[in-house]
């Protein structure tokens, strides 16, 4: 029994009445039954504070029986009320029913009880397939299932992992690896399958909805490969969950271009299988990577990643570089780019880009990173805004370097100018902080000797 209170349903004797031991005094009701309570002693009934129909704590006095020779001083009505209240207070304090602050559901977590969306949204997979995919960093939605109802089974995961399409392994890998240390109990966050659609977001139009708009035979259907699915999913996720904020600036490139020519000219010649070649050949992009990394180091608050509970402030500047490859794109990462020389960055970038195109990158080579650079200058794009690739908080969109008329000190002159637009995750990097980062970047680009120190 965990009865903490009861109610008096009826008094059979009034205040001041003379009662005899054994007389029925009152009837109480509990959650189980009603029962009559007899007077435990003979005397005069006084101080009847236990009112009918009110919850009374078990153990609280409801009245007093005074012996005939006992003196009686009535308690004031106020005191009576106070004592009733305080007993109640004690009673409720003693129970486990104290209100507990309701923990708000994190807004970005799918609401409990929401049915999984069938079809494109949720992937059917066995627990074993899920675990193996989680451990391998494989995004299950990119794997086609051969089990009943299209369920992804272990064999499908094995097949996916042994195929050359390793590029589809998602950025969840680090999480998956980390969770291995914590036995098999998934943390609440991990319990959300990575391939579940975002809460509160309607599923994309069904295939039928789109195809209805076009005449039959007027198109060809090319099924998505896994990379396409991954790109689609990650971009939707990034663009819908990250509050993007954009800052644009022009940088003059002439000093940088001059320095680049000078450095490349100084490259020693190295013997390779194909004959002799310079040991390095810097591109403008290599210098942009270095400048971005150094700017991040100079403005460390902007070198961050957003998580629900804390800001992840990075100690190194790992710069991802978007590389276009047939059928999609991928973002290999130059780790600790702030510490690396331009020639190292340049050579590393060449190797990563070439292996990216042949889809030979290892997951650790394209997962993570603290910021990114996307350069469409080679296409003559003047300016554009890029989509942030989490866990990055920023991405720098780099346009083409072109000769423009520049007004300086009241004079028009010609300069090679490159427009850059920084997208920031406003949760992690506010506007002013982003501006600070971009200004630091511009200063390095326009004073490129700084890139050499």
């Amino acid at each position, binding site marked *: 029994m965990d009865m903490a209170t009861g109610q008096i349903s009826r008094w059979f004797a009034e205040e001041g009445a003379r009662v005899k031991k054994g007389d029925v005094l009152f009837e109480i009701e509990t959650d189980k039954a009603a029962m009559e309570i007899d007077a435990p002693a003979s005397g005069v009934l006084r101080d009847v504070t236990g009112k009918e129909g009110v919850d009374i704590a078990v153990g609280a006095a409801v009245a007093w029986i005074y012996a005939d020779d006992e003196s009686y001083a009535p308690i004031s009505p106020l005191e009576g009320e106070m004592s009733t209240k305080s007993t109640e207070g004690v009673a409720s304090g003693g129970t486990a029913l104290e209100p507990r602050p309701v923990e708000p559901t994190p807004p970005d977590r799918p609401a409990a009880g929401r049915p999984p969306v069938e079809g494109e949204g949720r992937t059917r997979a066995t*627990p074993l397939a899920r675990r193996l995919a989680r451990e391998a960093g494989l995004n299950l939605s990119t794997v086609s299932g051969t089990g009943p109802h299209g369920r992804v089974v272990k064999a499908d995961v094995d097949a996916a992992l042994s195929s050359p399409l390793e590029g589809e392994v998602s950025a969840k890998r680090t999480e998956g690896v980390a969770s291995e240390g914590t036995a098999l109990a998934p943390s609440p966050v991990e319990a959300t399958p990575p391939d579940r659609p975002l809460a509160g977001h309607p599923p994309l139009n069904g295939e039928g909805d789109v195809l209805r708009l076009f005449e039959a035979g007027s198109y060809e259907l090319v099924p998505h490969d896994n990379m396409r699915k991954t790109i689609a999913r990650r971009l939707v996720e990034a663009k819908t969950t990250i509050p993007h904020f954009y800052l644009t600036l022009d940088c003059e490139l002439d000093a940088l271009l001059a320095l680049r020519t000078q450095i490349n000219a100084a490259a020693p010649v190295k013997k390779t299988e194909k004959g002799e070649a310079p040991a390095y050949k810097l591109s403008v992009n290599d210098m942009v990577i270095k400048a971005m990394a150094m700017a991040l180091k100079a403005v460390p608050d902007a070198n961050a990643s957003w998580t629900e509970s804390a800001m992840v402030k990075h100690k190194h500047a790992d710069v991802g570089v978007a590389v276009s490859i047939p059928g999609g794109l991928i973002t290999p990462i130059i780790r600790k780019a702030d510490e690396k020389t331009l020639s190292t960055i340049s050579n590393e970038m060449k190797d990563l880009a070439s292996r990216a195109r042949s889809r030979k990158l290892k997951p650790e080579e394209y997962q993570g990173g603290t910021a990114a650079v996307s350069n469409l200058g080679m296409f003559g794009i003047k300016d554009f805004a890029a989509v942030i690739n989490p866990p990055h908080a920023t991405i720098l969109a780099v346009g083409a370097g072109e000769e423009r008329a520049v007004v300086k000190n009241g004079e028009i002159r010609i300069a090679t100018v490159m427009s850059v637009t920084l997208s920031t995750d406003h949760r992690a990097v506010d506007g002013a902080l982003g501006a600070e980062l971009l200004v630091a970047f511009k200063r390095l680009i326009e004073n490129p000797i700084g890139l050499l120190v």
Partner: protein
Amino acid sequence: MDAMVRELSYAQAIQEAMAIAMDMDERVFLMGEDIGVYGGAFQVTGDLVERYGADRVIDTPISELGGAGVAVGAALTGMRPIFEFQFSDFATLAMEQIVNQAAKMRFMLGGEVSVPVVMRFPAGSGTGAAAQHSQSLEAWLGHVPGLKVIQPATPYDAKGMLLAAVADPDPVMIFEHKLLYKTKGPVPEGYYTVPIGKADIRREGCDLTIVATSIMVQKALDAAAALESEGIDVEVVDLRTIRPMDKQTVIDSVKKTSRLMCVYEAVKTLGIGAEVSAMIAESEAFDYLDAPIVRLGGAETPIPYNPELEKATVPQVPDIITAARALVKGVR
């Protein structure tokens, strides 16, 4: 310990175990309906009354509740009674003594007493005895803390587990499938025990774990033999004890095979299969499942009289084969 091993029937193995127990301990005695000169409805006690006398092989009146209570009272006061229900169905008449008294006495009295009673329940269908003499009620008792519930599947286990039950300080309920009584198997002479609470891997395999109980163990083994030719390698776990259940053996097996099927004769719903499935779903083995768990249990009906209907209400070897094939090949 090179005990002579003979082929004995399941019933003979139980009888031998009871004789050994009575030889070893004067506190052991048998009670039940028609277990004396009649030899028991299934001839399990056989001629024990001639060897041990009517004082130790006691015919009770047809009083299941009272008889069970007498056994409980005797156990409570130091005896080691083995009480035979003529049919497990009749345990329904004695639920009060089994569930309220035997199971709870030790607990209610704060550990001051124990109730080392053994109760035997001839169970299961297949004899044409129809709805009131064919049930499998082991899960009923498996739901009660304080009881131990076992289902030996072979003559070897029947003897060894009965001797373990007699030695156990707590009430042990033994469900014996009636169709097993005549099945034969190797049984060593003399005293040995098979531990209560420990499952047995009857056949090793890597594609599918079948957790089976009682008569379904042999059916699962027959199915496994047939599936072998199709390249399906089945592991058969004989649960043997349903309370306390040997979870680890089942978990380890499922981690190995990634697929689980439970096969038992009792009505499918709310039974052992549900318990094993839920236990696996709660365990570390969940992340090893590569297919949904499947239960094959008795139909949601009383056991019918007509022999074809009777067979159809409980899992048979072809049912196990079909279900196993579908599970492993993923065609469902």
